[in-house]
């Protein structure tokens, strides 16, 4: 062989090396997690992504703690306790600013994004051999519910009430998740989307969730969709439809109303602190095993005097209750603070009262009776039902004396007695345009907030304002 042959052989070797396709070699996917495309390409993946969309509900910034706590603090049901170390003071004082607003904004949109990922794949015609359409529909129903709840809770917290005008600023309605800079829709558009999603969810969800897990009502069912529709129409003051959906749940839901003996903590044989209590239509399941569990930043720890106990109960709620009302017994004081009270709705879970675990009721049967009663008082009619009957149905199960007549004011009080610390009062005041009046109040400012006032809508967080030039801040901030 002469030199040139050597050279050519040598070059051929190098050429082969360089000609080898590198693209496979350079395609490295993580194995301990999955790419978005892969996750969303199979039924199993879509199901996992749907289960993942539940996770944000338990985060500390949503039902896991801050959402119900903020709503009840600002609504006057809760107050800063003597144990308080500074947590939630801003909410209590109604001193929220764009820099000190509410983290629900991030969490709710995270849930919406996760739901959208599944919805968009399914609605693009997803099918898989061997998978029933009903199962695919169920995932769609779960995700539409979560998307609806996200938009609804955002609109309730960051917007003026729908009842004061549907053309007011809403929140961006996000149906396709992308790195966009969306502007705000108006409230009417938001509520229309929530309605559409819930109607679809009600049609597609089963009455019993086939999902495994510890808590069967920690998953979504058609009852949950109908119950949330009842609440939605109540907020929209579509009284008749609200009453109809409430009636539908009351008549078909297999659970039963808590009795006077039920209405106490698990250690006394009651329902608070237990999984899947009889009234629960949908609750957010609390557990240290949940990925979004945030150590001590959980609702029981902040509300129990045995935990941080930063958030106590206002006397304004307690004074509404008769001595015989079992709901009054759910408040406790401590040896060090005999004149201060805390609610035991979140006593830590049975069987050991772990203060880092508690379920948060989102929808339960008593609220359906209260919705129907309020709708009827406002002109709805349901055959065989009266507003007074519905309210007394609850009161008779709470050891309270039956009422002889029912005014709207009394109904609002009953809502407060029954639903306190479950994230309603602030929104009830807003949608009925009543204004906040606090008697038991320790703050220096903002004891009472009139309606209307710009502060009924919390400020859009500054981080969003900074990242999105199309975002409009609520007036006044």
């Amino acid at each position, binding site marked *: 062989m002469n030199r040139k042959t050597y050279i050519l052989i040598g070059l051929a070797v*190098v050429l082969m090396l360089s000609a080898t396709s590198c693209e496979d070699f350079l395609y490295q996917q993580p194995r301990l997690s999955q790419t978005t495309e892969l996750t969303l390409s199979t039924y199993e993946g879509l199901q996992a*992504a749907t*289960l993942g969309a539940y996770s944000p509900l338990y985060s500390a910034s949503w039902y896991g703690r801050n959402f119900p706590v903020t709503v009840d603090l600002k609504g006057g049901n809760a107050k800063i306790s003597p144990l308080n170390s500074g947590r939630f003071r801003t909410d209590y004082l109604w001193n929220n600013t764009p820099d000190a607003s509410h983290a629900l904004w991030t969490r709710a949109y*995270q849930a919406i994004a996760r739901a959208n990922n599944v919805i968009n794949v399914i609605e693009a015609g997803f099918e898989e051999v061997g998978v029933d359409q009903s199962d695919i529909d169920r995932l769609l129903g779960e995700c539409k519910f979560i998307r609806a709840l996200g938009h609804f809770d955002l609109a309730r917290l960051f917007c003026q009430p729908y009842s004061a005008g549907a053309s007011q600023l809403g929140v961006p309605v996000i149906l396709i998740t992308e790195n966009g800079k969306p502007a705000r829709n108006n409230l009417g558009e938001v509520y229309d989307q929530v309605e559409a999603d819930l109607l679809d969810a009600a049609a597609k969800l089963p009455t019993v969730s086939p999902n495994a897990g510890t808590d069967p009502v920690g998953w979504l069912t058609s009852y949950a969709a109908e119950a949330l529709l009842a609440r939605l129409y109540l907020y929209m003051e579509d009284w008749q439809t609200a009453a109809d959906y409430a009636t539908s749940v009351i008549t078909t839901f297999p659970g039963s109303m808590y009795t006077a003996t039920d209405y106490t903590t698990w250690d006394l044989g009651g329902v608070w602190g237990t999984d899947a209590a009889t009234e629960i239509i949908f609750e957010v399941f609390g*557990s240290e095993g949940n990925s*979004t569990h945030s150590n001590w930043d959980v609702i029981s720890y902040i509300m129990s005097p045995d935990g941080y106990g930063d958030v106590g109960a206002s006397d304004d709620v307690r004074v509404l209750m008769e001595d015989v009302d079992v709901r009054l017994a759910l408040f406790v004081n401590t040896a060090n603070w005999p004149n201060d009270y805390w609610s035991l709705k979140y006593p830590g879970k049975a069987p050991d009262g772990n203060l880092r675990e508690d379920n948060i009721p989102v929808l339960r049967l008593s609220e359906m009776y209260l919705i129907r009663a309020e709708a009827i008082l406002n002109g709805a009619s349901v055959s065989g039902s009266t507003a007074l009957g519905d309210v007394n149905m609850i009161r008779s199960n709470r050891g309270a004396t039956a009422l002889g007549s029912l005014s709207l004011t009394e109904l609002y009080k009953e809502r407060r007695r029954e639903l306190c610390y479950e994230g309603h009062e602030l929104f009830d005041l807003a949608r009925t345009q009543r204004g906040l009046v606090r008697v038991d109040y320790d703050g220096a400012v903002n004891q009472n907030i009139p309606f209307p006032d710009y502060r009924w809508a919390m400020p859009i967080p500054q981080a969003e304002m900074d990242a999105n030039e199309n975002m409009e801040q609520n007036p006044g901030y």
Partner: protein
Amino acid sequence: MKRLLVLFAFLVSASVMLYSQGVQITGTVTDAENGEALPGVSVVVKGTTIGAVTDFEGNYSISIPNADEMLVFSFVGMETQTLAVGSSTTIDVLMTVDAIKMDEVVVIGYGTSTREANTGAVTILDEEALKDVPELTFDKMLAGKAAGVQVTATSGQPGASSQIRIRGTSSLNAGNEPLYVVDGIPIMQGDQSYFTNTGNALAMINPNDIESITILKDAAAASVYGSRAANGVILITTKSGKKGKSTVNLRATYGVTSLANDNNYRTMNGEELVGFMQDASRNAGFDPLDPSSGTYYVPNSLLDGELTNWMDEVTRYGSIQEYELGVTGGTEKTSHYTSALYSNTEGVFYGVDYKKYQLRSNITHKISDKLSIGVRFNAFHSEANDVAMQSLYYVNPVFAAQMILPWTPPKNEDGTWNLDIPENANSNPRATADYDDQFEIQNRMTGNVFLEWEPMIGLKFKTNNAVEYTDGEGRRYWSPEADFAGNATLQTSRTKYKQLTSSNTVSYNKYINNHDISVLGGAEIISNGNNSYYIYSPDVDPAIPYPNTGVSDSDQGDYGESKYNLASFFAIVDYNYASKYYFRASFRTDGSSRFGENNRWGNFYSFGASWNLHNEAFMESLGSINLLKVRASYGVNGNDRIGNYEHWGIYGPSQYNSVGGMIPTQPANPDLTWETNTSYNIGLDFGFMKRFSGTLEFYKRQTTDMLLDVPLSRTSGFTSLRQNIGILDNQGVEAILNIDILTGTVHWDFGFNIAANRSKIVDLGDEDQIIASSIIYKVGEPLYSYYLYQYAGVNPVNGLALWKNDDGEISENFSDATKKIMGSPEPQFIGGFNTNVGWEGISLSASFEFKTGNQVLLKENRYSNSDGYSWGNNQAYTNLDYWKEPGDIARNPKPIANNTTNSSTFHNPRWMMDGDFLRIKNITLSYTLPADWTRKAKIESLRIYGSAVNLWTFHGVDFWDPERGIDGMGYGIYPISKSFVIGLDLMF
């Protein structure tokens, strides 16, 4: 396909071949200094292997192809001469001593060059510069030795890694460490341990095995490493055998170490603390002498018992031992180098030690004239014990010793360690050191085999293939003896790292009539991966403290893994004309699995040129100038130090209601790619009177496509996305000066280097600034700027801290304070100097390192200088200078027990100090016994020496050592140690 073009160009040049008949040339070579004949001088026809060697009379005779050729005369230690043959047939040559080592072979990217031919900014450290520095890892040796290379200690712990920045910091979110290439193979780097701080991957290289280190600083030198070159490249060449009789080398060193504390930093003693606490108690409104004051009761009787200096209690004299045996030698065909090392370092803190065993064998063999094969094999075993250093955690002895009260006894009356130490979470660092385990045992191996084929003169094919592997076993055991609650908790880990590399090049060199051209083309692939298993076993049986006795319900296991692959093609062209005009161009294309699919391949390139004025005829009149060379370069390279899967949209596991689901954990970013680094360099090398030589460099490097976490609208479901959008500039000057003051029997030299780098943030995307706790990144400012609350001193009236807002309004209320940029941890000047005096066998050398113009922030003062905030803990003596009565102008506000005024906040300019220092790195005195004595004992050479390392550091920081990492904010730092070492080198 650009990759094929390169090869085509090579093909064209390779096909040129020349043949002709001979001309006979003869002559004599003599030493210019004394006129004596020089035997053994190599005479070679340039660009060929045609050559001859001078005989004992200095005569040579050589047959050359034609009269247009050049003859190259070279001899070790002499300046190489290249002469045109022309019409003469007799050429006599006078050789002179090469003071500037212009012909020294310099290892550069994918080959070698000479100082003469160099076009880029490179710093070369040879064996001499690295000798006698008893450090475990070579990265520590670079400190103060190379202009523009900033070596910052983050810990003085044996085996810990340093932060190295070449020409400043170029990135916010990608890595900033240089690329290390050993014997042509890029190696793994960083800390590879699971629980300890001492997994520095560079530790596997025995510093004594290093023949030379080349630091590639500018684009012309580094860009051939493409997407990994942005932070500079450090090339390490290990020793190989020299032709001749095999020698056996024995080296032994032993040393004692102690905590360096040149400013006498300390905690308060008992009396000082009692006085301080009594004042703090009074200032909080209590009577410190009244037992009913509860926790505010500070009786003088605290001083009645035995008092303990806890820093003394947790430290000791450490030791260094190192023993090495080596054999090296070579024949015509084979050269070999083998070394075996054992080293054992005991840290100055109890519980800290580091042992390593290291073996290296380098063998090169010529199979034939055209084919040679080589093996570089390195095996390493290390056992490192430590405690939780580098944290403000109560088991960190550095922090604990500052917090534990002097009247807390270290031992109980029965002689066991006292664990009832509530002020330190009931943790005793001595008990921890005695009973707890925190260790990492590593086995590492690197092997590479290369084959070089030179089918004809000038044409070379080389394939270099390597396997690098680390196997680590970690253990963290909290024993019941050291735990107040008496629990036994175990964590164990197994980790594996591997990197496979295949680097293949073809090069061709041709010299025709003063035109000297070299081309090189290559392909390289790297596959890197790691995985780890981790087991958490609470409540193990202390009698059998292993996972098998853990309670199975509480055992937890975890697994992690990560991989990346890199494929590259590259080419280099070198050209010079008559050793006067040099030109170099490089090109590389890198494909990386780390980059998003839209930007998977990147192209990088550089151009460099130099003009050797000293080789011009017109310079000959200026005889005293030996070297005058100007260089310029421009190039673009990249920084690929980003996470392995950052471009993917990812769903990761989640759980709700006891069922597993999947949640999006990372938004997709198919555009994500390397950061681009564009660099310009102008350099001047000079040498005159054979005594003075040096270098001046000016550079600018700009990082574009800098990775930033861009905030997203939350409606996207994410809060931020890492994007390539920022711009950062670094520019600076470097100067090196070397002087041979005396060159006779007594020789004395002096070297000095200094560098100044200035960084500036040019663009942060849509943001004007990014605040990261005490640091702000702001457009127009240096990369790192401290962003601290405006402290306005102590109110002389009442002793409270005063704060200021941007309008200059003074307030006693901390919440009224606003933050402002104050100071920067970036040094204005870094450098070092060294000197060496020698006479006969005696030599004395010293090296110094300095940094100036930087600030450090002592964040632990939040607790250790806390104005009473850390009530019930000991405090630093610096807190004693506090306000006592109206009118006092004091450094510290009055202490208040359980202080709630936030006066000792982390973000406090009171904790910012000038970080300048001058360190006597090393002083070594050595004596080599006269050879005619030792030969009688059949010893080729015998050398004894004594070294002092970190002998003294001049600084003004209120801490043991001034260094606190690149950002100046390290805390809980294991300070550096001083060592005094004696050593023996024996050669048979």
